[in-house]
């Protein structure tokens, strides 16, 4: 295995004597995009500052190419680039802003101009090159900021919520551009965001940070389908998290008792174990109660009562009572067809594979030493 491009070991950052970041181990490989996702105040920006060598942690170390840093930090910083949430452009033209990092590195004018032109074009702002940075819109400024970072051809690119302040269409276009650019380079990128969809979209791997600690790291599908604990699950948008009890394993499926209802799950579990049953709202299908279940692969079909219907854009969120609280996302069309209202009786179905189980750390059942 190749050495990670950038990593941290046992890093601790304190503010006012209180730990705000404690990361045992986190690495990013060349050519890889590591998306770090977490709620506001989770320590994401602090992590970026530590990785960018802009803040010295009170404990632990940063590794570059797998080795501890030696001597001045400047040569290391010059192999990286950082894009912050605010574009933070200097009071100069777009062109000279994009070239500023190259000037600091003493890159000759000819080469500088060539590279700047290339990246201005790459981010579609070549027409703005002579404009004062003060006159740019938010999206244009962030494009300039991305070009300013990528023109450096950095070995490591650190992105601290670069799209958080942008409107939706601008954000989507810019994410597409960045995704394409990162796909073409060998740059190791750490992309920090509070937005789960951005993390899913850009990350080759996803790390979930909550309360200053990395709770889970893995491929996006794994992290999103199998959150490590309750808080991770809740943050990642798993709406239904209910306690259950594993009755038996039948034909490879765990049979779980959830508030007296039988739920089957295609997930590893121990008989007699306590678990948290996790279900994403988009995996729950709502159908009329009297309907005969046609040929369906949904193993679980529970009678339920609608408690509440909330419109969220093109979708509706349906809070159900299936003996336990259950949340479903359905389209506007199904909402009208089913004429759902509080009190409506329905059937809630979901596949056994949609159920994710988190083993409960129930110390009461552990044999005492």
């Amino acid at each position, binding site marked *: 295995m190749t050495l990670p491009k950038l990593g941290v070991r046992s890093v601790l950052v304190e503010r006012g004597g209180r730990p705000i970041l404690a990361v045992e181990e986190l690495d990013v490989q060349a050519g890889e995009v590591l998306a770090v996702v977490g709620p506001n105040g989770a320590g994401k920006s602090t992590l970026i500052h530590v990785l960018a060598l*802009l803040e010295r942690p009170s404990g632990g170390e940063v590794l570059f190419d797998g080795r501890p840093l030696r001597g001045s930090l*400047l040569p290391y*910083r010059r192999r990286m680039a*950082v894009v912050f949430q*605010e574009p933070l452009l*200097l009071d100069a*033209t777009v062109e000279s802003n994009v070239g500023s990092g190259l000037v*600091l590195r003493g890159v000759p004018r000819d080469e500088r101009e060539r590279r700047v032109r290339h990246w201005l074009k790459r981010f579609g702002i070549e027409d703005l090159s002579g404009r004062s940075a003060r006159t740019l819109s938010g999206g244009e400024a962030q494009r300039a900021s991305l070009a300013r970072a990528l023109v450096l051809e950095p070995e490591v690119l650190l992105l601290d919520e670069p799209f958080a302040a942008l409107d939706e269409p601008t954000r989507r276009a810019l994410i597409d551009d960045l995704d394409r650019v990162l796909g073409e380079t060998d740059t190791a990128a750490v992309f920090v965001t509070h937005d789960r969809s951005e993390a899913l979209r850009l990350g080759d791997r996803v790390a979930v940070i909550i309360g200053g600690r990395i709770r889970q790291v893995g491929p996006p599908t794994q992290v999103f389908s199998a959150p490590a604990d309750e808080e991770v699950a809740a943050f990642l948008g798993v709406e239904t998290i209910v306690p259950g009890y594993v009755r038996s394993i039948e034909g490879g499926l765990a049979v779980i008792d959830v508030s007296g209802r039988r739920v089957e799950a295609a997930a590893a579990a121990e008989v007699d174990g306590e678990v948290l049953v996790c279900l994403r709202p988009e995996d729950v299908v709502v159908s009329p109660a009297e309907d005969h279940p046609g040929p369906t692969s949904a193993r679980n079909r529970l009678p339920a009562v609608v408690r509440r219907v909330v419109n969220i854009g093109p979708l509706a969120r349906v809070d159900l009572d299936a003996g336990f609280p259950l949340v479903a996302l359905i389209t506007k069309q199904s909402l009208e067809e089913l004429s759902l209202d509080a009190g409506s009786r329905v059937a809630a179905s979901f596949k056994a594979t949609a159920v994710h189980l988190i083993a409960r750390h129930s110390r009461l059942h552990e044999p005492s030493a």
Partner: protein
Amino acid sequence: MELIWDGIREAFRLIFTGDAEVYEITLLSLTVSGAATAIALVIGLSIASVLAFRAPPGRTLALSFLNSGMALPPVVVGLVVAVMLWRTGPLGQLHLLYTPAAIVAAQAVIATPVVTALSVVALQTLHPKLRLQVLALGASRWQAAWLLFREARLPLIAAAMAGFGAAISEVGASIMVGGNIKGSTRTLTTATVLEVSRGNLESAMALAFILLALVYAVMLVLTITQQRRRAS
């Protein structure tokens, strides 16, 4: 009224007939106050960078002292510097008393709090994260300082103007530590005081007009530098 016109006429005569003494005095005023402002800028920007970017504990207290320093009476500064440079004083060995260097020192003491206090405010107007962004771009400490000073150049040049204004306009300290010695430490302000005390109001008026013209010329250059739109 006639006195004013006579003064202006005399000022033009002195300037255009190339009066050697007046040129010498004017040049000394400019170099002494320029040097004092330069020293104040070096000290002031260093202190201001620490206060603005590092936000050390006790910043507000330090700022309150600096702000009080803006109203430092030149006579008090002159007295303290004179005592320091006195033959038997702590810096007496340097034999600087009654030299232009002594005036530079005194004026630097007067200008430094002005430049520092206004520079702190100037740097605080920058985005708090801009320093991090500049460092993240690969700037060394000096490169970062240069970029940030350039970014805050409008209010920083204003700070320099205020410092130069405080230095060139004071007279009490210059007389005390310089001694108003003809051909050595006589500046426009001290010469004006002397002419008034001699009753030569016409010459005094002429020197005063030259001082005003000098101040205007320097401020004009600084203002043009300040207001010039970024070329590159």
